[in-house]
């Protein structure tokens, strides 16, 4: 009987989870695809491809973060802003991960820009995009 309350809690939570089951599947496939693509790109000899790989791997991580939030039936606890803005509570995604992803996007944006600038310099210095012809 020790697990009684827990099981009850489980069954209470499960319908919430179901809302996002389809979404989760799509997200999982997207994350897998992005990481596979990124790995492939990062291992290329062409520097431009590597930069693409950097961009894709960070985006993959962002999509993963979104997936971790899940989609649940919202309530006033999970979306406190809605308390003051309209009474309806729609099906919502977790706001925390959205904020995380926003931050992560800004960071990946900066990193990708830096990588591009470096690529440009590397191209000017070596006149080639092929990593193996360096030095």
């Amino acid at each position, binding site marked *: 009987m020790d697990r009684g309350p827990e099981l009850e809690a489980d069954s209470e939570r499960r319908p919430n989870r179901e809302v996002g089951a389809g979404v989760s599947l799509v997200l999982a496939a997207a994350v897998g695809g992005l990481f596979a693509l990124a790995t492939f790109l990062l291992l290329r000899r062409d520097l431009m491809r590597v930069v693409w790989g950097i961009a894709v791997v960070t985006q993959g991580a962002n999509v993963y973060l979104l997936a971790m939030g899940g989609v649940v039936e919202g309530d006033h606890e999970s979306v406190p*802003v809605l308390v003051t803005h309209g009474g309806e509570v729609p099906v919502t995604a977790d706001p925390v991960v959205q904020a995380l992803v926003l931050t992560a996007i800004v960071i990946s944006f900066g990193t990708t820009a830096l990588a591009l*600038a470096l690529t440009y310099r590397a191209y000017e210095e070596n006149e080639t995009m092929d990593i193996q012809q360096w030095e």
Partner: protein
Amino acid sequence: MQTTARVVVPIIVLVSVSLLLQGHNHPGGGFIAGVLTAVAFALLYAAYGLDYLDIGVLNRDVESGSGIFEQRTVRAYRRTFLLGLVLAVGSGLAAVALGAPFLAQTYRIVESVPIYHEIELASALAFDLGVYFVVVGALLTVISVVGGE
């Protein structure tokens, strides 16, 4: 391209400003508004060329000789970046100076303003404005420097 730019650029700038102003409790905010404004500028650059701002808008000659980093427009962009940084950090420090925690925000509803009747004036706007300037300044510096080479 130029026709499209003529129509689209004002709309983009307008949207970006509205995003900036409502950013403190609606979707939007300094970062995305800054990116949009920078996109508007980038569109102008793409449609009219890099010197359009100097010749077409501000009606002055493009400086020649010195490096792209020292050109008037790029210098202005860098100043914008710095201004934004000062604004953002300053807004955080102001809270500390007033005895509240760093980055603490508040808002005040200003009433009886013509047309709007009431405006919610949030102190977060200062921070957002700072972020906006940082993003605009940084992106335009990068765009014009990389575009110039």
